């Protein structure tokens, strides 16, 4: 999927959630959230990992 499409979908979702007319939304800038170092390490090494959560 193109980057612009992904941004458009995200904007549409946020606009809908907040009841804003999407035609009036202007995206001035956006930042790609990259995988964290840990996420990359886990993905690169095919590690099965689940972070412990309270009460498990």
């Amino acid at each position: 999927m193109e980057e612009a499409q992904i941004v458009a979908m995200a904007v549409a979702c946020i606009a809908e959630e907040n009841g804003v007319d999407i035609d009036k939304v202007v995206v001035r800038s956006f930042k790609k959230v990259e995988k964290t170092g840990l996420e990359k390490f886990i993905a690169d090494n095919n590690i099965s990992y689940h972070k412990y959560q309270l009460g498990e």
Partner: protein
Amino acid sequence: MDELWQNSIERLNARRESAKAAGGAERIAKQHSSGKLTARERMEALFDDGTFVELNDQTMSRASDFGMDKKKRIGDGVVTGYGYIHGRVAFASSQDFTVGGGSLGEAQAQRICRAMDKAMEMKAPFISINDSGGARIEEGIDSLTGYADIFYRNTIASGVIPQISVIMGPCAGGACYSPAITDYIFMTDYSQMFITGPAVVKSVTGEVISSADLGGAAVHGSTSGVAHFVYPDDLSCLNGVRELLGYLPQSNLDSTLEVPGVAVDNSAALADIVPADSKKAYDVRDVINSIVDMGSFFEVQPLFARNIVVGFARLDGETIGIIANQSLYMAGSLEINASDKAARFIRFCDSFNIPLLTLVDVPAFLPGSQQEHNGIIRHGAKLLYSYSEATVPKISVIMRKAYGGAYIAMNSKGIGADVVYAWPVAEIAVMGASGAVNIIGKKAIEAAEDPVAKRQELLDDYNEKFMNPYIAAEHGYVDEVILPEETRSKIATAFKMLKTKDKILPYKKHGNIPL
């Protein structure tokens, strides 16, 4: 945005990138190839997702001797900061082995100390992840003083906030003493701790030994008792830290979290788990698991001093500390290591307001010259001292044997137990029938026409009179003789009653526990 702004932003971004780059791609790859995470990845795994905030990321060494002016890196080989674990704030440091082998110099120590100070101010746990070659030789005495600053803070924070050390690489020399002062030490399978490494050992004593055999996780988890928890890798180890913290309060002024679990009362199984014949062994962990909330038992030092079991569990959602004699090993007798293990656990629980449940099935202090010569008297005294000093709610269940000094030491009424229960098969006496008859019936047996019959008569008499819980109950040393199937409900009810216990010891600077 004018050019000045642009330049300033670029400079900051470059410094940030430099800090994040740590020791460079090559060293990070080497760290990964040895199965280890980087310092920042460990922080990510430790804290709740997306909550880690780095502090003092621009820290840098002031040293310039011995080429330090060229070697030093932004961050100085450690990452510090705070984040949330189960929604509660915690502080941590994580040494970065990719930068100068994680060696500790003045600036790194200061950075760690600042995070420790914040943890103390915020009354939050402090977790120290160790992966370091040791003192940074180029920084000389400033490096050693850095360690001293950390040890001092570890000591002052002891009993105020939970302190956890996680060893994920080498930890050698003086560096070992920070973990040693903290409450719990976690080790990964490939980590090592020793005061002097194999090379020095060989040069001084001639002994040839590998790093793993000298101070590997297996050794410290089972033989020395230095490590409380051993895990195969970084991720499982940091999950273990998260699990432990779920049982602990944030500080000595806080309460533990209530974690609603599955409160299944399996006490009805206890009479099947524990043989009435006190010579037969069983796994006391089965007893524990039948009493506490399902799956909530978290054992501490499971492979060290296995004749006593200690750990945390939840009862009706609330944390309790459990101490239990394990008849599978040494018939559950108390010896030096078991006394040390239990005493330290009791003191931790008392420091952090965690009620204590003691499950008693103890034949004696282990006899023998090895024990006597290595100081069972002073080590056993730690157990008595710790129970006596503890002001948290203390409940005992005498399941079977409770003999002699070991009976006293296992949270008896006389040393401050709030509530003592006993099962109908409990034997509370100075010693077992056979030993007792050999002493008190010696003359009668020798004078008898039929010594064998006389001995049996005396045994029957002793068993009838003493090998039961009723004399102790008659004299008030046992509050109630209960059926095994009543165990969980009785304990839960008693802990509920004891919730407002407010016992204050006389003022003192501190006691003088026999160390």
